[in-house]
């Protein structure tokens, strides 16, 4: 029985070693995907986002959250426009119980430049497939940069809105 635990321990060590190997440099060198390659040359600048993400590191007084607006657009007949996501993720496309996964995924995509272009293109392809009569999708992603202040033993929030990504994907 002791041998079995030794083997298990070695397997755990191997898993840890393999996890350590997951470095972004390696991924960058081995990209084999058009969408991700495009992303690398994308103008979007990560510095704008400042991934010292206030909420998660919780070390700063700044805090930001991301909102995405996604709409199916018909420029010739605006009454046909459908809002897929407004101030949130893609809740309407999935069960409410799974919405949190989709929402956090959108947030991750926006936080990660590698995903932004590929992610929006993926979402577009999915929407074009499910709504075949539409040819345009508008993506707009904003960050709400918030600062916290203390005002007589109460917290106050100031909000500054930045648009990060604003584009139309056409089919």
């Amino acid at each position, binding site marked *: *029985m002791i041998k*079995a*635990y030794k083997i*298990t321990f070695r397997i755990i060590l191997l898993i840890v070693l*393999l996890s350590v*190997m*997951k470095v972004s440099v*390696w*991924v960058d060198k*081995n*990209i*084999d*995907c*058009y*969408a*991700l390659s495009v992303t690398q040359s994308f103008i979007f600048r990560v510095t704008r986002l400042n991934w010292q993400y*206030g*909420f998660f*590191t*919780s*070390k700063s*007084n700044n*805090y930001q*959250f*991301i*909102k995405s607006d996604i709409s199916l657009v018909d420029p010739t007949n605006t009454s046909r426009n459908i809002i897929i996501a407004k*101030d*949130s993720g*893609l809740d309407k*496309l*999935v*069960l409410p*119980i*799974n*919405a*949190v*996964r*989709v*929402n*956090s*995924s959108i*947030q*991750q*995509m926006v936080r990660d430049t590698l*995903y932004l272009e*590929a*992610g929006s293109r*993926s*979402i577009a*392809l*999915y929407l074009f*497939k*499910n709504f075949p009569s539409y040819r345009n999708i508008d993506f707009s992603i904003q960050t709400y940069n*918030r600062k*916290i202040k*203390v005002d007589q*033993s*109460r*917290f106050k*929030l100031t909000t500054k809105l930045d648009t990060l990504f604003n584009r139309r994907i056409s089919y």
Partner: protein
Amino acid sequence: MNSYTIKSVLKDNVFYNITYCYNANQLEIFRILVALFAIISMYTLVLDYDVFFAPDGIVNWEVSNANALWFECHPQKIADLLSVPPQYVMITILALYFAALIALLLGIYTRLSAIVCLITFTLITNVMSSFAFGVDIYQSVCFFFLTIFPTGYSLSLIKKDNYPNLNEVKQICIRVLQLYLIITYISAGFEKAFMLNWWNGRFIYFLSNDPTIMTTSFFPKDQNSLFYMFFGIMVVFIESLYFMLVWFKKTQLYILIIIISMHLFIALFMDLLFFGLLLIILNIVCWYPAIFTNLKIKENDKSI
């Protein structure tokens, strides 16, 4: 409580008294609850198959495959290798996963079922890597435990034959599970303790004002900063001291009620239903024998 007592309790219970917090069927209950949980959570995902699993879902396989490292097997790689349509591969993986889960639930070839569950679940999470979060990591760890723990000796359709050391091995396995849970809380608690904003209440204030995190309003707005500070410090203390309080008979029941309430809060107000549920299951599985014993003692002890 003086340091001598703390030391002796930890020494006696954690490392020597291996039968403490142990029940003969505990591992089997762990197996059944994890399998049941996995069936329900995957069923809800399969209802949104087109979004999560289809090769042209919201995040295409092209993206998730590129994101997978060379040692991470993506269904696209299998499809390319076998020259079959990718959707057939995905449906086969899901069918295998459900079949293995049902076998695990019923106790049919438990170790083999657990191995199949672990492999297929890893493949599934590689497809939906961008949608994965904490609960998937906990779930794959649970499957990993099920591949090495002996879980098919009772509460199973096909029972394995007992062997002399079985009870001892099971006790070690339960202790591993308990220590795993404790380590996750220690790391989470200490990480929070190093963040000033957990101590001064700002984190809880942030949390209550971020609609992407708090999907249901729970904390009242515009309270005194002490109000938010109290909750922040409470979370730090609960998670950091869990590893110790859970061993003491006097505090065990209370810390478990608090931690389960915390996960219930996460499940209901932060929309992380499955995350909250799995952590509640793990807590119950790890400590239910001791809780039942405690409750029985209290019932019989008229002097209290």
